[in-house]
């Protein structure tokens, strides 16, 4: 018995320290719920949001590639800080170009050699030049093409270059989701977010950087102010925006500020709001609940975001080869086809087409009426035959990105004023 051991002084100070250390280590390991592959060089750990980290995707990759790919889906804040501060805890970062202002200079990811990326030539121009089609607008804010290119040391350069910091893969453009039954008319402008008709029935996204951009889209749509760059507002612009929003909030205009995907779904399913800034899969989730929901295609354009795959600076040797294999697997399109059922796009549409049912392809990418009932990624029918996606084809939707998700120079000031807005 341990007690006997203690009594007889069998436990030396050293063995005690060892035991304590072992106990602490066990506790620490148990606390970190991240399952580590058996050997350090066998397999990959990939982290990101639930957008791209989905069991089905990493399981399929494991099967196709022959080594384990373990995914960890985090909330936005946790993902951000883990990517930034613990790049020895993952091999792949499924990150976002709007974080590049932080991740780039921090050098937590290694430059990727595009020569090692299969099908790099087939990747669209959206991230290479900023224009998916020659006539498309580049959009305000942190457009991916401004942050993708780097030199062999990972320093940002004006593209094109042989090296990139992150491989562009999944992306989408966000707007407003609304319940057409409750609004009684189509929603076609960001200005509706601040329209008094919907007082008390509107929700905004409670991420300061994005919430303010949606509000800025609305303010501009209402003709109240023209912003120089909605993706990089000046202090005066932030002041104007927040000073306009505070009285609205006091009048009860906003029903809620949602922080996660599930909340945005519940708000509309429970009839708390009739329109809200929303992410694409929330629309499909709301429909799966039997509540009508349309993803608006505002005439001012959408708010774009772009995700991608980066490799931690710590990865080398065999794991580095595996990391490239996983990225090439993503570029091959199966995963892109999987997430297209949620409305997301992929940087090589041709590769996605190989893996998609023609009816799905026509609906999600071509903007044609659904030829039959279409499922979400998990098999629930969410699109009824004959429905059309708002905004038309992928190429049409991406011809009009008004602004990209961004980190502003005045980020600290923005967060401060947003806090003030929420406290008001």
């Amino acid at each position, binding site marked *: 018995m341990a007690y006997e051991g*203690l009594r007889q002084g069998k436990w030396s100070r050293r063995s005690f320290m060892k035991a304590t250390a072992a106990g602490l280590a066990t506790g620490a390991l148990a606390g970190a719920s991240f399952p580590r592959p058996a050997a350090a060089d066998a397999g990959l750990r990939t982290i990101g949001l639930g957008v791209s980290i989905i069991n089905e995707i990493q399981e399929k990759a494991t099967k196709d590639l022959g080594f384990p790919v373990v995914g960890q889906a985090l909330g936005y804040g946790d993902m951000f800080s883990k990517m930034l501060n613990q790049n020895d805890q993952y091999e792949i970062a499924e990150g976002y170009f709007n974080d590049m202002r932080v991740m780039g200079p921090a050098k937590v990811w290694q430059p990727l050699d595009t020569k090692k990326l299969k099908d790099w030539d087939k990747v669209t121009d959206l991230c290479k030049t900023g224009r998916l089609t020659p006539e498309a607008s580049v959009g305000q804010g942190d457009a991916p093409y401004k942050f993708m290119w780097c030199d062999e040391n990972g320093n940002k350069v004006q593209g094109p270059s042989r090296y990139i910091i992150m491989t562009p893969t999944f992306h989408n453009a966000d707007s407003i989701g609304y319940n057409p039954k409750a609004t009684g008319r189509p929603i076609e402008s960001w200005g509706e977010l601040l329209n008094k008709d919907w007082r008390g029935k509107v929700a905004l996204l409670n991420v300061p950087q994005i919430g303010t951009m949606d509000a800025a889209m609305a303010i501009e749509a209402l003709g109240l102010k023209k912003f120089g760059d909605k993706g990089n507002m000046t202090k005066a612009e932030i002041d104007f925006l927040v000073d306009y929003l505070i009285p609205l909030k006091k009048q009860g205009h906003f029903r809620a500020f949602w922080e996660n995907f599930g909340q945005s779904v519940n708000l509309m399913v429970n009839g708390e709001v009739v329109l809200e800034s929303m992410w694409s899969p929330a629309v499909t989730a709301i429909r799966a609940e039997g509540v009508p929901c349309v993803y608006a295609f505002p005439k001012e354009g959408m708010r774009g975001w772009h995700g991608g795959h980066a490799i931690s600076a710590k990865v080398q040797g065999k794991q580095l080869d595996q990391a490239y294999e996983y990225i090439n697997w993503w570029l091959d399109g199966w995963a892109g086809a999987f997430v297209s059922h949620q409305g997301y796009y992929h940087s090589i549409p041709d590769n996605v087409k190989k893996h998609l049912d023609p009816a799905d392809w026509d609906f999600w990418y071509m903007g044609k009426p659904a030829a039959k009932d279409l499922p979400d990624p998990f098999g629930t029918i969410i699109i009824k035959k004959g429905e059309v996606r708002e905004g038309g084809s992928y190429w049409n939707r991406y011809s009009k990105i008004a602004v990209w998700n961004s980190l502003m120079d005045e980020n600290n000031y923005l967060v401060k004023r947003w806090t003030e807005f929420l406290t008001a």
Partner: protein
Amino acid sequence: MTTVESYAKVTHLETPRGLIGGAPIAHDAAEAERKYRREPGFPVPLLIAPATLWLVIFLFLPLISIFVFSFWKSTGHGMTPAFTLEHYQAFFASEGFFDPSKPDFLTPSVFIRTLWSTFRFTITVMAICLALAYPLAYFLSMQVENFKWQLTLFLLAMVPFWTSYLIRAVAWLPMLGRHGLINEFLVSFGIVEEPVSFFLYSEFSYTMALVQLYVVLAVGPIFFSLAKIDRTLLEAARDMGATPFQIFREIIAPLSLPGVAIGMIFIFVMVMGEFATAVVVYGGKSSTTGTVILNYYAIANYPFAAVNAFMLMVAMMIGVVIILRLVDIRKEL
């Protein structure tokens, strides 16, 4: 020492409070004897080592590093060692603070206002919790005679704690929402025509949820301190003609104070650090200092997050000290 002297000494220890007076206190020496005799057997270092190690590694070092980081410089993607007061300045002074030419030169910064509203709100929640918990604990300990029933009912009061914190918060949504249970009831019985909005995503729902989440933390300690009260004291008071109110005011209330204080400290510390419940039942429509910390953490401005964390800690410590000043727990226990 004569009998009279020693009697005087005993009675002098505690100035009689009120009608019934304080209980005689045991002799100093006996008290000291009782307190400081150590059970032989376990070596002291072994007993305190686990807790000390745990506290040093997982509490003191992190706290110290938070304090140290609050003086570091933010680089936009991390921080570098430095000694700068700029984050404290940003915390206390808003633009134009103490600048007489600005109209709002006496307005404290939004961070102070947030901390203040967090504090004010915490006090409200504490008051409501106390008002609910005390009668409940009183009923359990004083009115329920059978010990078995006492225990059963006490455990029953603890049942909400068996489910996760988040579920208890989320459970309010189908209750209070526009199409929630209460509104369906009100509308179907014609009490209101339109569903009432203020039940959910309001200060009302936020307060309700917090009270429900934390009231049990007060019931427990108050129940235990009430249950510890020597019933013969109450009997004696009754025999001497004290009214029930007098008994409560002069015996029960003072003797249950330690439980009240412990319960209030629990609630104070929990609610001051709140940030998650507001998201669920207040629709994120208010900011607490916890939210501010998260927001700055999310944009990698760790020093400023550290300043807010440190100031929150200071506010908590002040609160706990005030409560402990009002009630000397060590003496009363």
